[in-house]
């Protein structure tokens, strides 16, 4: 098992009545009413410090991602954060997991190929190259990408990035969305032929097939934990892998889980209850319709989702749930180290997850509590999870120089 620490970089101090006063945390939330740039600078620095603390505590990777015009997670450029992390974690066996820069909204996409290659060079070959499609809010509304073209743009951008990394020759790119006369990337990544690719997703069937076809790792970024939503996703994903002739290597699957560890279950509730509710009630305060902007999903994914709207139901009912519900429904894993260990083992076993991502900072959590969570998680929980899958499978979707098997071999 490889465990990475994810951070969204949310606004930690939204007003108590935020979700009643404002229609959305995304797109329309007014910056000057809600935030102060100096305080935001503090948030960024805390975020970096927390991810660096996680790396020092033994996190196998640190993850950042891209979102726009919101207080839910505002790292419009994850690569700025990633390059700081690459520098600050020199000498640690920690992957820089960029989950990452959104392909359809970056023009030209060779910019991502360049920046990822830079991070790979700075980090000494520790990059994991996330290739996200981007949310409809980010790509369609904030960045103006035509919804029905988003996936085709994505695919073309992906092909261009891979070719830019691997081609030995200068080449022209004559695409439908991008035309470049002479592509000749400087720098190239250390990892050859290119860094491992992860595809984050939220359950679209077309993304499963795409990931399996390309032999990448699918990362299910769900906030609904290990419950009724994740099992159909698991089934359909592994089915896609089998259809594409892939093995059932659990490292093909990543999963994001909100986690809070305290000394006891009771203390965990005291520590995390209000931050969990802040996360689900405020940070996910987005009009439901925006997750389904016409064209963002292709026809088959749309039909699939409309016919079995489990995800929409989950989103729609968030405001009625309290901490206890989030806990009981397994949206969050919070408790003593033993509780968290058991639940995460069960989750990873059942969903067949080899690349676990943990969100150890949730919503309004202050810096000190986040550091406590990181410390307890990597001291008391992570060591018990690490041996999972290790004997049986190799994580081909991890930077080669950081693979534990590889390390043992080098040492021997």
């Amino acid at each position, binding site marked *: 098992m490889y465990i990475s620490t994810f951070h969204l970089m949310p606004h930690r101090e939204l007003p108590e009545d935020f979700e009643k006063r404002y229609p959305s945390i995304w797109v329309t939330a007014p910056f000057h009413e809600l935030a102060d740039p100096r305080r935001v600078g503090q948030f960024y620095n805390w975020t970096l410090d927390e991810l660096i603390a996680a790396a020092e505590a033994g996190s196998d990777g640190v993850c950042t991602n891209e979102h726009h015009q919101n207080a839910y997670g505002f790292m419009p450029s994850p690569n700025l954060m990633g390059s700081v992390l690459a520098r600050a974690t020199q000498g640690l066996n920690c992957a820089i997991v960029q989950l990452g820069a959104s392909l359809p909204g970056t023009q030209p996409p060779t910019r991502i190929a360049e920046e990822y290659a830079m991070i790979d060079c700075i980090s000494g070959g520790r990059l994991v190259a996330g290739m996200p499609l981007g949310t409809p809010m980010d790509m*369609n509304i904030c960045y103006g990408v035509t*919804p*029905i073209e988003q996936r085709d743009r994505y695919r073309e951008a992906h092909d261009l990035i891979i070719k830019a990394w691997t081609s030995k020759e200068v080449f022209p790119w004559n695409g439908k969305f991008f035309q470049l006369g002479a592509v000749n990337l400087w720098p190239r990544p250390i990892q050859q032929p290119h860094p491992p690719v992860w595809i984050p997703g939220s359950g679209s069937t077309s993304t499963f097939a795409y990931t399996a076809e390309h032999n990448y790792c699918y990362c299910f970024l769900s906030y609904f934990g290990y419950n009724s939503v994740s099992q159909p996703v698991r089934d359909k994903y592994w089915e896609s892998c089998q259809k594409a002739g892939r093995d059932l290597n659990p490292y093909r699957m990543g999963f994001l889980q909100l986690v809070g560890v305290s000394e006891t279950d009771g203390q965990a509730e005291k520590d995390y209850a209000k931050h969990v509710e802040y996360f689900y009630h405020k940070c996910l305060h987005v*009009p439901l319709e925006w997750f*389904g*902007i016409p064209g963002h999903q*292709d026809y088959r994914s*749309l039909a699939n989702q409309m*016919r079995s709207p489990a995800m929409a139901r989950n989103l729609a009912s968030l405001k009625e749930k309290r901490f206890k519900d989030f806990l009981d429904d397994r949206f969050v894993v919070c408790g003593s180290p033993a509780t968290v260990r058991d639940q995460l083992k069960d989750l990873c076993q059942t969903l067949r997850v080899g690349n676990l991502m943990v969100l150890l900072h949730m919503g309004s959590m202050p810096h000190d509590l986040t550091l406590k969570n990181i410390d307890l998680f990597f001291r008391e929980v992570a060591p018990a999870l690490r041996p999972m899958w290790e004997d049986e499978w190799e994580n081909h979707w991890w930077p080669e120089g950081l693979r534990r098997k590889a390390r043992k071999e080098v040492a021997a």
Partner: protein
Amino acid sequence: MSAVTAGTGQGSVAPANPVRERRVSVWQNKISASVKVAGSGPPLVFLHSAGGLVWDPFLETLAARHTVYAPEHPGLAEGDPDAISHVDNLWDLVLYYFDLLDELGLKSAPIVGHSFGAMVAAELAATNPDRVSKLVLMCPIGLWREDAPIPNWMIVTPASDLPKYLFYDPEGPLAKAIFGAPDAEAQIKMIWCMACTGKFVWPIPDKGLKKRIHRIKSPTLVLWGKQDRLVPPIYAEEFASRIVGSRVEMLNEAGHALTAEHPRRVSALIEEFLGTAQADSQRSGS
């Protein structure tokens, strides 16, 4: 004048003129276009809005005196949602429609468009004035005023607010019949129609028509609901002032969904304009 008694626009009226679906292979045989055809008499082409094609009392009325050709936008023909990927931009779409008119044998015909379909009709008339004998624009999109921005119907929140933009009476039986309790299949169809039409207007429905609109030479009728809350009625003048010799009719107690709200009033105005108002008259259409 009430339209509501005639039905709901949901196809609840048994048509007097049977509606046939013609599949026409166009665009280098990459697309099998679906065209609903009904009625007899001089041809009339109808281009539907972003909400999709519904054979409703409005089209049924027009089919009494015309052969109505109502193509579905690429991507909406049953069983071929990916057809939309072969039409990349507005220029493609315009030429695709000329292809389709060729295949239907329509050298020149009146074109009636609603909303998105009216924008396409205006583009066709501006590109090749000879193909469009007369033009009817019903609350078209395609122009943009900073002081009257058109709300993006694809991201209206909550979605239950959509009737407020579309209907004169958002609480009325017509709005309820169309948006009351849509089943999953109807929703899939409507969302996919918005997706396929949205390709040509996202995120702002101003793709340069203002530079081309002066080329429209067809006699033009502009129809608008006075209570259109999606595309403000102020745009009627924007269109009329740019199309030489055009005429504007503003409808009372009508919203953006004017053909569903007033099928007979609207079809009567169109027939009067086309010169086909009398059932037995043989007009040339000039």
